[in-house]
């Protein structure tokens, strides 16, 4: 991909003897919404911070808008928005002042958009940040990343502190932003349903490796639950390549299979007189099966 917004190859990160990321390679193009999933400690935050240039890779490289992320020039940084996991607001200021301070760094700050979102998200711009709740602070952090209309928006667990209504509003806004085909969004979350609703590409990080990085439909087609029933009440001896989990009950074998395709189905059908049913899995079920 030549017009990739982010390109990484052989990316690795270690802290002392502990390796957090191993040999991660990916491209993110315009219009892509990447949902990053992984257990705690899987390396999600490290991966996002490597993309932002906050930390140096121990191996490989990551480029953002064609520049090494560690030495991102000013104009490229102006095209990046970031919502950190833990907000970094100035407690002593009011919301309006905080917005004003951040706006001063961007020549193209969309004040109208922010005013509208403040009203829609019920953010009192006169309130002092010090007395705001965790959820309100999180909403404000998100606004601060939206204001300059970044081409690359990176969000590290942005909805963790939001109530369902605020989460829905946030997701709607993210959908509106992602409608612009020039933008890319990368966001990590433990709320799998949000990722399923929004992302068109899924990354699953497992033990520091990118275990999956395809679009959501491919993932759902590739990892399925297969029910194999033996004809006549008897189940022949079967071998299912890519099976993540098995369960046998009477003449029925249920398996979660990775890498399922027409060829795998044909091979299974040829192995005996069996009836095969395919059950699609939700993203949450897939995530759980991959981490079983």
């Amino acid at each position: 991909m030549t017009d990739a917004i982010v390109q990484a190859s052989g990316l690795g990160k270690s802290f002392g003897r502990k390796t957090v990321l191993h040999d991660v390679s990916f491209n993110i193009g315009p219009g892509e919404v990447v949902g990053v999933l992984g257990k705690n400690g899987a390396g999600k935050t490290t991966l996002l911070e490597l993309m932002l240039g906050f930390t140096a890779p121990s191996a490989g490289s990551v480029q953002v808008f064609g520049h090494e992320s560690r030495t991102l020039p000013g104009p490229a940084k102006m095209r990046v928005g970031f919502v950190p996991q833990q907000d970094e607001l100035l407690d002593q200021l009011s919301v309006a002042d905080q917005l004003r301070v951040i706006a001063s760094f961007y020549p193209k700050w969309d004040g109208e958009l922010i005013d509208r979102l403040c009203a829609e998200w019920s953010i009192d711009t006169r309130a002092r940040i010090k007395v705001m709740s965790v959820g309100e602070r999180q909403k404000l952090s998100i606004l601060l990343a939206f204001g300059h209309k970044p081409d690359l928006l990176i969000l590290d667990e942005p909805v963790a502190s939001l109530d369902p209504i605020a989460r829905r509003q946030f997701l709607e806004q993210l959908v509106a932003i992602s409608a612009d085909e020039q933008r890319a969004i990368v966001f990590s979350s433990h709320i799998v349903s949000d990722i399923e609703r929004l992302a068109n590409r899924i990354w699953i990080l497992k033990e520091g490796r990118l275990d999956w990085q395809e679009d959501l439909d491919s993932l759902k087609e590739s990892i399925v639950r297969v029910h194999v029933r033996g004809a006549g009440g008897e189940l022949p001896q079967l071998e299912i390549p890519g099976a993540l989990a098995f369960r046998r009950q009477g003449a029925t074998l249920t398996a979660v299979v990775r890498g399922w395709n027409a060829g795998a189905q044909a091979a299974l059908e040829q192995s005996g007189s069996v009836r095969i049913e395919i059950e699609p899995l939700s993203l949450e079920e897939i995530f759980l099966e991959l981490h079983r």
Partner: protein
Amino acid sequence: MRTVLRLLFMYFMGTPVLRALTLGGLALWAISFYILTTQAQSTGKVMLGVAGLAAVFLGSSLMPLMVGRLARSHAMVNLPYGRLKLLISAFLTVALVSLLAGILALYSFGAGVSAEVGWWSEPHLFDYVILVGKLAFTTAFIVAGWLYLALWFVTSQRNMFGFAKGLAVIAFILLVPVREAQDPVAEFSWQLLQIAIAWIVFGAGFLLWPKWQAFSARWRPGAPAAPAGASKRRLEGREVDLMLGTANPLMFIAAQAVPIIIAMRFGTHGNSVWLYFLTIFGAVAGAVAGQAAQRSRVLWLRTNWSRDELFRHVERSFWRHNGFVLGAIVLLTLAIGGYTGITPSVFAAGLPLLVLGTVLSTYLGLMVTRGLRWIEGGVGVFVMLTLMSLAIYVVEAKGSLSVVFIAETLMAMLIFVLRKAARRRWARIDWMECRAPRGFAGRGAA
């Protein structure tokens, strides 16, 4: 009881550095104690014990942070007698450190007054030495309690306000309880009463704090809105300083000046202590730069500066802030000098010390890009000890100041070394290594 003991163990042994300080301090104290019980007193022998005591105190520096964090945690609501156990553990920590001070004072004083005859065999001497030990214990108890409070402010709220509050407490303890302890008519019962009142008030406040918060929340008003125009003017051109926490040196200056002025009026008038204290104040003012690295992360993302340019902007911002603070300290020194009769030669050698203290600690602070490690800690201790020794020497030297000027020149050269080291570190700054600890009240920039 098990919880309290576990907490005490964590305060003194929680990290490898604390463990080394506590065990090393105890070893020094024990050696000093052994020597003082078998030989005549000398400054070196006592200083060995004092150094051990200081190390044990520093070894328990996790206590205020842990107590504060745990007291504010949600878990504390559910733990049975959680706050009471925390309070007891804090009290015992202060008591343990003070006990070491009391015993050391008792034996060093005893060794000093009776090199030939054992003080314990002379009834009058025995009573007096015991009284000195008891007074040392109570004084240490009072001072250590306040010092832990200062540590709590500085470590829990790692911003200007935290430093300012910590400084105010240090100024208070240096000039009020210490002076009172030097008073020849200090009374043991009066000191005990002070401890009892202070801990009853603190304990009641600590235990009843959640109830008070719930009660006061009903009447807490919303923050008044500032007029938009005034707010805009207030912020314009100071955005970077605001994000670095250097926008308001006045707060810091006030926190230093008010206790100094009060102490000057009501406290000690001896000019020998002033240069010493003001040098420490200057150095502490510079040390706020230690928070620069973690605060600069999003500044880097939101500006068009490279890491090297970022360092220069941060450096400029701290120079501006610390320059104001240093100016205020210099003015205070001149005022105090006029008031207490500091000689021109002391001014000539002392004022550069203030400047050196602030500038050196600013660059030491800027060097902290990966948390406080052995190298910064070691250089910091060296710089502080040198500055404090020079401050004492300047006043005591009475005329011969060439050593001071040579030392000041060497310290000035050290500034360039530290700046170069700081700049090199910022060129490859890694914000994953200087992340602010979670849950701190004072946050960085957005």
